[in-house]
């Protein structure tokens, strides 16, 4: 494969996760009236962060580890 797709996916969701988590911590609690009083930015930000980091982890492991049985590892065509 040309470019491990898990890399950009992981990177993008990690950035979204950090952005939303920080915004959730800093924002005025009044804006969460519409989300039923739940600080959804904080919680969903953490979910995205975990998802992003897991994707990144897979991508990095495939890049570093041996390519033996991993069909998704990066290689030049």
């Amino acid at each position: 494969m040309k470019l491990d797709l898990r890399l950009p996916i992981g990177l993008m969701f990690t950035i979204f996760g950090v952005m939303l988590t920080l915004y959730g911590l800093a924002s005025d609690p009044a804006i969460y009236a519409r989300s039923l009083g739940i600080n959804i930015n904080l919680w969903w930000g953490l979910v995205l962060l975990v998802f992003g980091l897991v994707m990144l982890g897979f991508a990095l492991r495939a890049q570093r580890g041996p390519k033996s049985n991993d069909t998704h590892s990066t290689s030049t065509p």
Partner: protein
Amino acid sequence: MQQIHLSAIDYAILGVYFAFVLGIGWALRRFVKSSEDFFLSGRSIPAWIAGLAFISANLGAQEVIGMGASGAKYGMMTSHFYWLGAIPAMVFVGIFMMPFYYGSRARSVPEYLKLRFDEKTRGFNAITFAVMTVFSSGISMYALAKLLELILGWSFHTSVILSAAIVLAYIFLGGLTSAIYNEVLQFFLIVMGFLPLVLLGLKDVGGWDGLTAKLSTVATNAGYAPGAWSSSWRHLDSASANPMGVEWFGLVMGLGFVLSFGYWCTDFLVVQRAMAADSMTAARRTPLLAAIPKMLFPALVILPGMIAIAMHGTGGGLLPVESDGTPNYNLAVPVMLGHYLPSGLLGLGLTALMASFMSGMAGNVTAFNAVWTYDIYQSHIRPGQSDQHYLRMGQVATVFGILLSVVAAYAATRFNNILDMLQLVFAFVNAPLFATFLLGMFWRRTTGHGAFYGLLIGTAAAAVHHGLVLPHGATPGLKGAFFGTVLHTYPSEMAQNFWTAIFAWSACFVATIAISLATRRNKSDDELKGLVYALTPRLTDHEIVWYKRPATLAVLVLGLTLVLNVIFW
């Protein structure tokens, strides 16, 4: 309606997404060396990526907005577009048709028709398909720009130019690979952007039980049985018992068989993703892997619509109301986004919405440039050029394909009827197509003349049927009965469409057989090797671990779909 206000964080999320979309195109540009790289990703895509792109390319505007709208309008019966109208066909294309598509090394669906039948059948399919993709992409752009104008107050021109420029840039740079990678990115974004909306909405209405209770009020107020909005099969004995206005036979045959198989098994837009897979097994697993998230999509796209109508119908007054008193179903999903999501997550939800529009557009554009270059330009205009010539042609086709889409988007703002008419014509052309492929792949006696004239007769049958019937409450014209007489009145437009498809398919099927028997075969058994079931060596999957075999996946997918149908019966 009240406009949604975006803050800096929402724009920042949108900006990050655009940067990644363009970045992927930029990173992939150096891998595009031949036309096969540009149009078929060099046949190097692993099954899971091809599978996610397979459903994401189909996850365009009509799906997120349209299925949400249908969820509000018809309730749980909308799930038939997934569990009946998609999964069985996806399993069929993976198990039975992919061996011929991938095995024949055809580079497009029209090219398969050329190999199996003749040039005229290919030409007919290629030209109608190319025109259709350009208009679909234009309609996608139009719908996005209209929606953003309405809910955000953005100017129509800005939205059209921005979305066109971004899609153009990443396809021009990286070809199909870029489109596929971005479709997978968009898939995750759509899931992650809509899931919090569904969770908040469900919590608000009191879970599934609370939702069914509220929906029974909606159903009884509309004059149906209390469960009409929350069950998928129970109210299908007669067309008057459900809001969709269809009965089970028309639904199963029209949607579940003709329309569904016609789309998933013959539409190059989706088949192209599987053709780009890195092996035969991967190509066969592509639609099967795609079926797993596909069967869960109703929760993501239909449920918000159902929640919206439940809130609206029980005193919430959530949806904007048209002048005749019916709610504006098309705004169900955007209104829900604005209702539940605070700044921050709102940006993510809107980004997901835009991503869905762009993946639909990009899917159409990549299918267009391949069909244009291989099936029209290379075979009719300039044959025998170097591969580099066709690669450049593909890039040029991407540019003018998108320019034509922009023209179509602007045409839609002025001549709404012309686009409605075109969509109607495409529906006529598409309805019989599956009969041609079914006979072509499984009956070696099918001839080129049989296929071509069968298709024409099927298309004509669709037009004639549509011209003689009318949905309840419609005036003769585009909606039907354009021949002046009304032979039959269907309870709904949906029922009319299903029956048009059934008639078209049957006419094509019978005509193709009759004409094939009356004409001489134009391909010998030898030429049909790898193109027809009886003349192709059986694939053996014994070297693959049993749980990775396409057949195992197929059984699993069909079993799960059956369970879902029973649960929501």
